[in-house]
């Protein structure tokens, strides 16, 4: 059985990576749970190790977000010139939260809000995380309201933010559905699906 390692800059990108593999490469297996780098600053200096893993051992899917910067510039800055075809670094534009918003049906269901409130072009939103927090604040589910949004500052995430949204990604979110609203996700799906062909 083919195996792939998922690396994410935080727990949410890890959850997205795991879901992408499960949905797009159903015959593949993840030998390890995704590696959570706990911050992009810890991911970048160690990218070379994951490139080595892909070159010498097994494919690697690495997920981070652009935080509003230009994708091409970031990739040029972070990656060496030659990377193996089984190493993928995919960047969510502009944040992982955009990909969550992109599956508006599932998100509205999960948060128990009206789907009309969820923006349709999430890649173009300047601050998708704030957008997601605003939606969570309107949730009809009390536990979500209390844990996803900070009690002290409604603009900030609460202590259960990652837990709830990782759970959402693992159980409700669909990459294929979300792709129709997010061009950055759509491109990533093509590349991940190609992995299957590239390695045959």
């Amino acid at each position, binding site marked *: 059985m083919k195996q792939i*390692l998922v690396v994410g800059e935080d727990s949410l990108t890890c959850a997205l990576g795991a879901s992408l593999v499960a949905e797009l490469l159903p015959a593949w297996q993840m030998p390890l749970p995704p590696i959570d780098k706990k911050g992009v600053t810890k991911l970048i200096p160690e990218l070379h190790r994951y490139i080595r893993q892909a070159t*010498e051992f097994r494919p690697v899917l690495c997920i981070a977000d652009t935080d509003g910067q230009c994708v091409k510039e970031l990739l040029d800055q972070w990656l060496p010139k030659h990377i193996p075809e089984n190493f993928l670094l995919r960047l969510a534009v502009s944040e992982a939260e955009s990909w969550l918003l992109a599956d508006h049906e599932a998100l509205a269901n999960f948060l128990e809000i009206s789907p009309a409130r969820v923006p349709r072009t999430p890649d173009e939103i300047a601050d998708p995380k704030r957008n997601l927090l605003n939606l969570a604040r309107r949730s009809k589910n009390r536990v979500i309201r209390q844990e996803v949004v900070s009690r002290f500052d409604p603009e900030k995430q609460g202590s259960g933010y990652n837990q*709830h949204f990782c759970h959402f990604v693992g159980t409700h979110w669909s990459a294929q559905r979300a792709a129709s609203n997010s061009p950055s996700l759509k491109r990533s799906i093509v590349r991940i699906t190609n992995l299957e062909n590239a390695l045959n």
Partner: protein
Amino acid sequence: MLITRLKLKNWRNFRDVDVKLGPRGYLIGANASGKSNFLDVFRFLRTIAQSEGGGLQKALKDRGGLGKLRSLHARKDPEVRIEIELSESASDAEATWRYILAFKSEGKGQQRVLITEESVYQQGKEILSRPRPEDKSDTARLTQTHLEQINNNELFRELGDYFAATTYLHLVPQLLKHNDEISGRIIENDPFGQGLLQRIAKTPAKTRKARLDRIQKALEIAVPQFSELEFEQDPITGSPHLKANFKHWRVHGSWQREDQFSDGTLRLLGLLWALQEGDGLLLLEEPELSLNDAITEHIPLIIDRVLRKRKSSRQVLISTHSDNLIAEVGDPQAILLLEPTGNGSTIRTPDEGEQNAIEHGLNPAEVLLPKTHPKQIDQMSLFG
């Protein structure tokens, strides 16, 4: 000498394990997977082998009796068995020593714990095998090991001495700082480091100075503002103290005694002292506690470096939960992964796939620590 292999049957939460050991061992596992129970075997053997106030019955009593020691998973076979091999080096084909001790409750009358087997092999040759005929006619003999009896252990006293030299360190800074207030009784062998100052005081002055100088150098790097470390005896009470100078806006800084040191400073100090004293096995329980991450990741290097400078090396077994510490372990095969199962915990080193992943770019923490995480931790049910 070092312990190269340990086999356990019905020991606490290990129903049946067989582990090879090298000069360093890093034990990882979920909470309650048995890391401390594994280390406890060596403390148990130490108590048995101790010439003063030791012995099998004492070692059992310290642990609340056989009932608390025996694995809950031992259903049919009630016997507890320890088999341990020691060699001069980890690469020796044949163990220099092999010691086997098995015991169980006699199951009637006084319910004494009786030895069912005690054997010693030297270079594969049997030099002790019990029970002997006289043990059978006088079962009281089976309540004591020959290891603990000077009259009976002359052929393998070296083995007993090695067991007795084991040190266990789980320094609890508060016990050391507030020892007078809580009138802390120091438990035998001082597992919690309360008697650190007394041990430092008993060390010959020249050795003490050399060791403290080395510790000072390490602490200067690890602890901001730390500059000098000195030993002093209180002029009135005579009690031993450590004092350190912390640089600040005053020209000469300020001197502080150990009760004002931070928890992390004290733990690091205790660790560095322990590495420099004694010759037997050293057991370290979660050395990362109270320490900054940046220091934790250097623990494997600190241990190797301090021990390399000594004439005789020490074998070190470390229990840890620290991501940073495990990430820096050079030899993945030194990592022992404890995995709880429905039938007791198992212990293993990285398998081929894990070893390969580590050799090709990943670090041991990335590959192995996820296996110690509770499986359901990401589910929403945590704490209701």
